[in-house]
């Protein structure tokens, strides 16, 4: 059985490794503690959100105009899943670090790297376990959506799935960072500090330098928190998904580089630099991808369908020159109401800030400050408006086409709802914690017999 010629142990079945990684993450207290903590956190957010939504709905039920502004995406989904974001930011790193950190601490990693799996297979199995933990951590959020639905609340499948997808990507990115941190750290505690430096650092970055001009604005965009904004706005951006995927892959690749204990540090550093360069190139490519889908039911990120159709047929380049400082609130309005929609609707749009990245104080005194110039083909016009109701007719005039007739029956009517609190209160503060505790106990049961897991 052990003769020197019989050692062909290069390819082993993946199933035992996957099963082992799943058991490892399910056996730890970290995951179940996080789930238990998420119950009141998410429950409180859901109750607050439905309460505020209910108060707004009282007026909305009397006035169709007010009702049209009531979207469950903004009113219920985003704030409820916001609690999930907090849990993933602060607690999930401790769960994800477990999959590698404990093995490093206990020395079991030295056994693991001798098994007939290549390091990428080991990292992939650990990421699969992180994904499984993440899916489990979605249970409180999904149960909130189910309760909302049972109470008569409306859920639009595309925008709900898009938001859940965004949170899943964010969680996976945090998991990949945690895995990388565990691979470079000698202890789980150090890995936790490194991961929290990323997640909480992003959070801090987000509210301290966001909205600032120049270099600070660029720094703010590096925040992990920014990832969710696009999904919360009801947008599915191919470039963003590629960027998150590349970042996840990058951290997983770095974890793969730093996992084997038998490699010299200088070799690991050289390989890491190569991966960082590759991922930076892919991230650069991702920023150039403009393909974005508006998945909201109220089409808030798009012009009316007839306008979208007509704008898509305007083939010449549109150049927009904005005489506003980046931190000017009018620029934010213009960007949200007009420019971002134009970029998605028209085939060739270029937008430039006349002041470059100078601050408002430096540019506000100029005569043309506030003007926005639209140049289509050989014709151009200037406007100070940030409303599509003024800009679109002007653009049609520049292009020499007639404005489309508004399509009847396409208005968003809104979904006002005054929901009760009893069911949610009982579920999040009693039912769900009890279910999680029972599942934890069931999971701790010991196997009855030996079976080869191949």
């Amino acid at each position, binding site marked *: 059985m052990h003769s020197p010629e019989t050692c062909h142990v290069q390819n082993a079945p993946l199933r035992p490794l996957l099963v082992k990684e799943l058991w490892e993450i399910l056996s730890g207290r970290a995951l179940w503690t996080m789930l238990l903590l998420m119950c009141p956190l998410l429950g409180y957010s859901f109750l607050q959100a439905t309460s505020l939504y209910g108060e707004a709905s009282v007026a909305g039920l009397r006035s169709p105009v007010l009702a049209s502004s009531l979207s469950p995406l903004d009113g219920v989904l985003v704030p409820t899943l916001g609690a999930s974001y907090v849990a993933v930011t602060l607690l999930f790193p401790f769960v994800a670090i477990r999959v590698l950190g404990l093995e490093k601490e206990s020395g079991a990693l030295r056994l693991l790297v*001798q098994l*007939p799996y290549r390091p990428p297979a080991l990292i992939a199995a650990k990421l699969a376990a992180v994904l499984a933990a993440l899916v489990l951590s979605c249970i409180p959020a999904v149960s909130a959506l189910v309760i909302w639905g049972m109470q008569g609340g409306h859920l639009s499948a595309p925008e709900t799935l898009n938001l859940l997808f965004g949170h899943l990507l964010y969680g996976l990115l945090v998991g990949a960072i945690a895995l990388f941190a565990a691979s470079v750290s000698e202890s789980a505690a150090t890995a936790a500090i490194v991961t929290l430096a990323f997640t909480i650092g992003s959070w801090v970055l987000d509210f301290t330098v966001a909205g600032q001009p120049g270099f600070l604005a660029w720094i703010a965009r590096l925040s992990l928190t920014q990832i969710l904004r696009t999904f919360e706005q009801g947008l599915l951006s191919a470039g963003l998904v590629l960027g998150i995927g590349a970042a996840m892959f990058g951290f997983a690749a770095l974890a793969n580089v730093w996992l084997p204990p038998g490699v010299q540090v200088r070799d690991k550093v050289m390989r890491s630099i190569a991966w960082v360069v590759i991922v930076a190139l892919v991230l650069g490519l991702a920023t150039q991808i403009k393909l974005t889908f508006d998945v909201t039911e109220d089409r808030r990120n798009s012009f009316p369908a007839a306008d979208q159709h007509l704008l898509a047929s305007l083939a010449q380049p549109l150049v927009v020159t904005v005489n506003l400082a980046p931190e000017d609130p009018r620029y934010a309005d213009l960007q949200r109401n007009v420019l971002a929609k134009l970029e998605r609707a028209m085939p060739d749009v270029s937008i430039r800030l006349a002041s470059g990245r100078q601050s408002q104080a430096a540019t506000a005194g100029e005569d043309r400050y506030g003007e926005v110039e639209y140049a289509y083909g050989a014709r151009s016009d200037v406007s100070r408006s940030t409303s599509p109701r003024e800009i679109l007719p002007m653009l049609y005039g520049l292009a020499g086409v007639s404005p489309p007739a508004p399509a009847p029956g396409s208005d968003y009517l809104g979904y006002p709802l005054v929901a009760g609190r009893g069911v949610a209160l009982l579920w999040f503060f009693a039912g769900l914690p009890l279910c999680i505790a029972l599942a934890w106990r069931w999971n701790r049961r010991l196997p009855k017999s030996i079976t080869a897991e191949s």
Partner: protein
Amino acid sequence: MDGVLPIAAASAFRQARDPVLLRVDSITKQYADQAVLSDVAFDIQAGEILGIIGPNGAGKTTLLEALAGVLPAEANDVRWRGERLPASRRHEAMFYLPDGVRPFLDQPVTRVLSFIGGVYRRSTGEIEDAIKSVGLTPVLHKRVHSLSKGYGRRLMLALGLLTPHPLLLMDEPFDGFDLRQIRMIVDVLRREASEGRTLALAIHQLPDAERVCDRFVLLADGRVRGVGTLNDLRARTGISEGSLEDIFLALT
């Protein structure tokens, strides 16, 4: 990868004639400016139990870890059946059982054994045989973190028995066992060797080493001070009836 071993590629003819399974040409390891291993070189012959002997701090663990490819070293030149075996591929030829490791702490013993058995496609019967041979049955349903030191060792040994590698490296395999238990483990190791497996054991208790090993590598201060059977070493030191302890003291 030309010139580098595929393990199975070594010809059966040469294997049958050459008793040397693994040749350590040179292993050198430094921490900062301090040399822990200095140009260590020795052979391991097929089917033998080789004892790497030395006091605490001699470099035994470092040597086994560098040999197994789980610790980087400044020089790490090893040949398997005459072919160069890079550190990144050592796990294809040998399996290293470290000292003081409790693998997968939160898992019950059965699950850890099932995992390793599954990785190497062992049958349930083979896993049960490994359990019986090291006496793990009483703690099968305990979690690894709750095992005593002795049972932790037995678990590691059972894992080693489930691996199919021709060469098994073990760091302090008798640490934590009483006399009876050591005898039982010696029997297990002898049985493995008799089935064609080669064992290299790092041991600091010289009487234990003398009881189980066929040949010895005497290590002190990171240098090899002697290699051979007990009789070889007696002849070299001129201590005709001396124990391994006497010889070690004479050579170091």
